[in-house]
């Protein structure tokens, strides 16, 4: 049946070449099993598609056009009168948000991207957590638990280059959440971490 089924479906879907089609039709006349399988499949498909349009409540179609016109008019009126009242506050909010985001980004963007690239691509989470972050002013664990609950796993900048399985590590490993503290480090701490990471990474490369 399985071989027949494939053949029949190829025939129905028009995937056979002209020659194959002629051979199939000849076989269909001669082979009882193929004919039975073909009829069964046709029956099943016909059962699903016997009627294309069912009888419906005609009131729906009678009311469709007025409803469409209502929506068209509403849109026209919106753009004519109402739009400005809705769009002005929305546009202002967007501008304020953009300014805020741009402003926030510049505070940590300079060293952060390079540092994060080093961390993500060259060092293990455990290593970073044990050797670098714990010596700093902010305790990463406290920070993660108390202040940053909603931001877990979302601190990876979109322009960060992920060369290996670092992304999986970041998402899968809870320790990875500690990277979120990087953006909150003071300039001095950031500098310290960066120096240490640079020397460790070059030592690793030399080895």
């Amino acid at each position, binding site marked *: 049946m399985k071989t027949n089924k494939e053949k029949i479906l190829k025939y129905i879907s*028009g995937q056979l070449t002209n020659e194959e089609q002629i051979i199939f039709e000849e076989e269909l006349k001669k082979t009882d099993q193929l004919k039975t399988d073909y009829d069964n499949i046709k029956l099943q498909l016909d059962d699903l598609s016997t009627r*294309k349009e069912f009888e419906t409540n005609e009131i729906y179609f009678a009311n469709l056009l007025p409803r469409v016109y209502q929506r068209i008019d509403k849109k026209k009126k919106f753009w004519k009168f109402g739009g400005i009242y809705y769009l002005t506050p929305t546009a202002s909010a967007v501008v304020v948000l953009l300014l805020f985001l741009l402003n926030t980004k510049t505070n940590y963007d300079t060293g952060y991207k390079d540092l994060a690239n080093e961390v993500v691509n060259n060092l293990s989470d455990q290593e970073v957590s044990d050797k670098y972050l714990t010596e700093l002013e902010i305790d990463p664990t406290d920070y993660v638990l108390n202040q940053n609950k909603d931001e877990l796993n979302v601190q990876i900048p979109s322009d960060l280059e992920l060369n290996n399985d670092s992304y999986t590590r970041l998402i899968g490993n809870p320790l990875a959440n500690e990277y979120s503290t990087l953006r909150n480090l003071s300039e001095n701490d950031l500098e310290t971490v960066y120096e240490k990471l640079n020397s460790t990474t070059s030592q690793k490369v030399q080895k």
Partner: protein
Amino acid sequence: MGTVQDNDFELINRFLSGEEVAFNLIVKKYQKKIYWHARQMMGNHLDADEVTQEVLIVIYNKLKNFNFNSSLYTWIYKIVTTRSLNQIRRKQIKRFFSIDDNEEVELQDKHDIIEEMDVKEKLEKVKKILEKIPPKQRQIFIMRNFEDLSYEEISEITGKSIGGLKANYFHALKKVLELTNENK
């Protein structure tokens, strides 16, 4: 087909010259086809209604850009298929974030325009099968089985190659048959 196309072109020209009644005639002519394609794709009345209205609004707004290279029927079909697929995507995203869909199911039952029980049951059966196959396979299955469209017509509507469409239809048929046997 030629006369149908001529009539359609005449209706479009009348609409473009400011006769709104020509738009009404276009709607009357195609509304059921639009609705039933959307209904089979979406599987329920409320979504089909939303798609149908959206499509009619698009037709109203974009008819001025109609270039007379294809038939109106093909042009409308392009809009319906695109809108239906978009609505499915929207629903999938919504479903991903929502916890409970029971309320929506009840709402859809209340608003259905099908009154006969046996028709409702039949549609439900078809829906249960179609919702389990990928939207693009569902689309070609509907166009071939319910709307009797040729591969050439479907290719013009979807912009896909005929070979690709045949392969898609083959997989759709295979899945539909498997699901039909499972549901027996």
